[in-house]
């Protein structure tokens, strides 16, 4: 009896609280994005008396010479480029690190750990980028994301490679596969599930990143989507409807990822939990 009461009573209360605490704020974004400027300025959580949702979206997209559209292009290029490089290079390291016991392993392992823990030194990184001629370029920001994100990829790949039987490698070697072929033709395809996990987790991270874009890619010409909201605040404080239309637009891509890849995202983000 007690468990039935808990199941329905506790569950209902939890659902109610979750709706108020987590869903209502999100609905506030949607409602405000649908209001006229005058109505939005009251900051009320209410159904818009007049829906101008699509007009607002169109205004936000066209504003300042299609800045947001250009930012979406930039963010897409950034995310795809950085994640693709990270996955391939991270898998290569994770694979060799797990398969081969060499005297370099302790060093590489501690560098990986350092990469996860130590906060990057921003101004010296700008100094290096400037020396390479990559400061304020998309390529530079991609390279920075690769450098900072590799550690996480390597950890996941190393753990997953351990589950692939070595007999497979040996069979491929017997069949005459060289190291490169062994990795890219035999092992890499077997990493598929963890690759999906790494891709979605890192894609969400890179797409949502604000700090590195602020430091390494300042300026309107090649703004990423996260920076557009920030420009919005300082430029048009009173247009809350447009601000929230912008926030809504940049929130949607990660949510779509979440709907399709919920299992992989959760697996990737909680991967340390069981093993510590």
């Amino acid at each position, binding site marked *: 009896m007690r468990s039935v009461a808990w*199941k*329905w009573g*506790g*569950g209902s209360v939890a*659902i109610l609280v*979750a*709706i108020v605490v*987590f869903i209502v*704020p999100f609905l506030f*974004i949607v409602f*405000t994005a649908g209001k006229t400027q005058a109505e939005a300025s009251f*900051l009320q*959580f209410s159904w818009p008396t007049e829906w101008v949702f699509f007009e607002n979206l169109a205004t936000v997209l066209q504003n300042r010479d299609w800045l947001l559209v250009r930012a979406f292009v930039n963010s897409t290029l950034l995310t795809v480029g950085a994640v693709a*490089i990270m996955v391939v*290079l991270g898998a*290569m390291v994770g*694979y*060799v690190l797990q398969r*081969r016991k060499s005297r370099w392993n302790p060093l590489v392992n501690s*560098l990986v750990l350092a*990469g996860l823990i*130590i*906060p990057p*030194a*921003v*101004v010296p990184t*700008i*100094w*290096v980028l400037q020396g390479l001629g990559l400061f304020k370029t998309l390529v530079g920001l991609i390279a*920075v994301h*690769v*450098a900072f994100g590799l550690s996480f990829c*390597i950890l996941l790949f190393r753990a997953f490679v351990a589950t692939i039987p070595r007999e497979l*490698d*040996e069979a491929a*070697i*017997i*069949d*005459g596969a*060289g*190291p490169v072929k062994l*990795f890219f033709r035999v092992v890499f395809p077997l990493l598929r599930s963890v690759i999906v996990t790494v891709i979605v987790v890192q894609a969400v991270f890179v*797409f*949502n990143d*604000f*700090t590195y874009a602020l430091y390494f890619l300042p300026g309107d010409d090649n703004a990423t989507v996260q920076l557009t*909201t*920030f420009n919005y605040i300082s430029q048009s404080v009173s247009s*809350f409807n447009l601000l929230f239309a912008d926030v809504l637009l*940049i*929130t949607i891509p990660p*949510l779509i*990822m979440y709907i399709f890849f919920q299992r992989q995202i*959760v697996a990737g*983000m*909680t991967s*340390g*939990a*069981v093993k*510590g």
Partner: protein
Amino acid sequence: MTTVTAAGRTATGSDATSPPTTRKRKPMKSPYPSWFFIPAGVFYVVLFLIPTIASFYFSLTRWTLFDVEFIGFDNFVRFFQEPQLVTGFVNTFIYAFLTSGAKVVLGLLFGVLLSSQIIGRGFLRATIFFPVLVSTIGVGILFKVLMDPFDGPINQTLAVVGIQGPAWLTDPSIALLSVALVDIWKGVGLATLIYIAGMVAIPQEYFEAAKVDGAGAWNNFRHITLPLLRPATVTVVLLSLIGGLRSFDLIWAMTGGGPGFTSDVLASVIYKQYQAGFFGLSTAGNVVLFVVVAAIIFPLSWWLNRKEADQ
């Protein structure tokens, strides 16, 4: 394992996928080449390792990217003398420990709750987790509006039940705590899911055995769940401390370090000094942050993992 190759190759030479190999191979060459480290290593060394090492030198200089002047420890002295920089230093600890403590407690609570048999479990898990994936800047902007002292929906709702809501982000004494509250709102879903993953890994036999021995719910929790969730706790503590100590975007979006500099943390001080053109001072802040993170995380993870091995 490489010695097998020479003998085995002729036997399977007819295999269509492998071209006939007439190429000679050195007998001791590993099929797992070390050069696989190199491409990743280039990115890592050039953009992470070199800047980190260089930061120790630049933190001792007055620096404008074009002009470097060595000034010894002046930057660090300044860092611990100017009140606004000291505030940022202290706030970093408050913020990190507050958020990570709350995430451990709430994450454990929600993790246990959402592992029990209640209706709407899938919905609840999905709901509590989605803020983790939403852009931090978006969340910051949203709550800046919700926490508006006069018109904000939070205080208007409180006013309906007769409570005078505080000036969340404009009251110097609670601005940092308000931001920390939002950080917890955003991050508790991750902690919860880590705990759920830990709960799933606990074998049901333990609970069945305890039931035979007549253990109640509390005893189950205290003596089975809690000790076996230790790896999950370690993960939550380390992850949220690492994130909390270096957190920047949420604070920047909500208060910009204000009012005044009362909600500044090290990361926002670093950005402000960089913006003001004090690159040496900014880098000194980076070094301080580095030392703080290293001095907390490395001993803590060593201690937490050692205790785990003892049990």
